[in-house]
């Protein structure tokens, strides 16, 4: 774990069509990254990493189509690290952008009154995780590493340089995932796989 500042000039974009993009941007900014909001394909140019935030997956899905962002995001994710949370995870699945070899189930835990927070055991440590009308992963391929589960369902996965979480680290002050994203973007770090 590293709370140090990002090397100067690491450019991280946060998809800002709708949803919890501001909280991600605040954490990345606090870690010293050069943060920008992504609403159009042009906004992806020159970025070193991308965050796909939570929000409403239907809204994000429509926005990605409206803005012509599908192919640009897929191409970006092929060569850059991506951190996706909640609806962002859904956007990357087989039924949407197809970046991750997973199938997700939306609102898997139920409606809002079933939203919850909990401490996930994570490689000898814990991650405080906030689940808001959260999805889980219902099917996944061989290239996908499952990093954490709740009720026997994967809620955190990694495939190559793409990390997808069903929960919201940005809502609990958890900065380690963003720290790792920045480290990936600068080249060489890994955390707790």
């Amino acid at each position, binding site marked *: 774990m590293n709370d140090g500042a990002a090397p100067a000039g690491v450019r991280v974009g946060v998809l800002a069509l709708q949803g919890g993009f501001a909280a991600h941007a605040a954490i990345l900014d606090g870690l010293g990254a050069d943060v920008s909001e992504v609403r159009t394909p042009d906004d992806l140019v020159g970025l070193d990493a991308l965050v796909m935030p939570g929000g409403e997956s239907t*809204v994000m899905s429509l926005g990605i189509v409206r803005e012509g962002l599908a192919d640009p995001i897929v191409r970006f994710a092929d060569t850059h690290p991506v951190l996706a949370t909640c609806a962002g995870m859904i956007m990357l699945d087989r039924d949407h952008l197809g970046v991750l070899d997973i199938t997700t189930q939306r609102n898997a835990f139920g409606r809002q009154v079933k939203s919850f927070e909990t401490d996930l055991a994570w490689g000898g440590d814990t991650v405080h995780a906030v689940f808001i009308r959260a999805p889980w992963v219902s099917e996944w391929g061989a290239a996908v590493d499952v990093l954490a589960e709740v009720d026997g369902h994967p809620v955190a996965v990694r495939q190559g340089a793409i990390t997808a979480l069903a929960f919201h680290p940005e809502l609990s002050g958890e900065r380690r995932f963003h720290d790792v994203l920045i480290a990936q973007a600068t080249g060489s770090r890994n955390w707790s796989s």
Partner: protein
Amino acid sequence: MSTNGHEPRQEATFTVKSGLAEMLKGGVIMDVVTPEEAKIAEAAGACAVMALERVPADIRRDGGVARMSDPEMIQGIQAAVTIPVMAKARIGHFAEAQVLEALDVDYIDESEVLTPADEANHIDKWAFKVPFVCGATNLGEALRRIGEGAAMIRSKGEAGTGDIVNAVTHLRRINRELRRLRTMDASELYTAAKELGSPLPLVQQVAREGRLPVVLFCAGGIATPADASLVMQLGAEGVFVGSGIFKSGDPERRARAIVEATTHFRDPARVAAASTGLGAAMESIETAKLGADQQLAGRGW
């Protein structure tokens, strides 16, 4: 890999309640009165729908007592869409709120658009698992609602008019009062809390952080994409559109246009494109011509 599922699970915490509002940010919450309208709203990009029996323009026209909607209608809308479904309870009517919680709605709006049930007290929102959004015309009112447990605030504007003027007034007032608190020293904040009629700890927190502790949306009078852009530029984090969509000439197209303008609120070229060829806006009423007894924003204590 770690396996979980035995960890203690905390539901209905304030983080979880305000967290859903965080996920609605940058989005448009649309009033709908039927499952068909809810589907149109979802397909057009609404981030949530507000299920109610009559939109504010019709409540205003019909008069009488406006109440919580029929559960059958709310359940029909819940079955029709996958996005969050909100519903309105009367100010102070905690039994209506209990019913809405039993129906598993995702958010309750304790709303001045309905006829108030209590002339002195709002609902104790801490007593509920489901989160609440409440209206406010100024910072003091917003902080009183948050003190009562509201996890999201919307500026009230004047519902059912299609006139943006009060929405602007209320947003500007809330933000002006926030800026003013930031300039105060510790001793001045006690008096500020007294003058605002708000809990001192919240006043101190807001003065320190320079923003509300919950998400702030704008409601009441948004009828066009440019209206949405205006209030977003004034600091709203998302918008409620009540009568503005389904009382307009081409609801589906207008809904999509307002969604697009809310995302691209800082880009005039995109707002212009979204505004083009939308057909007639809702039939509107100039708020200044309404008598004090016809203004809904004054409801709330």
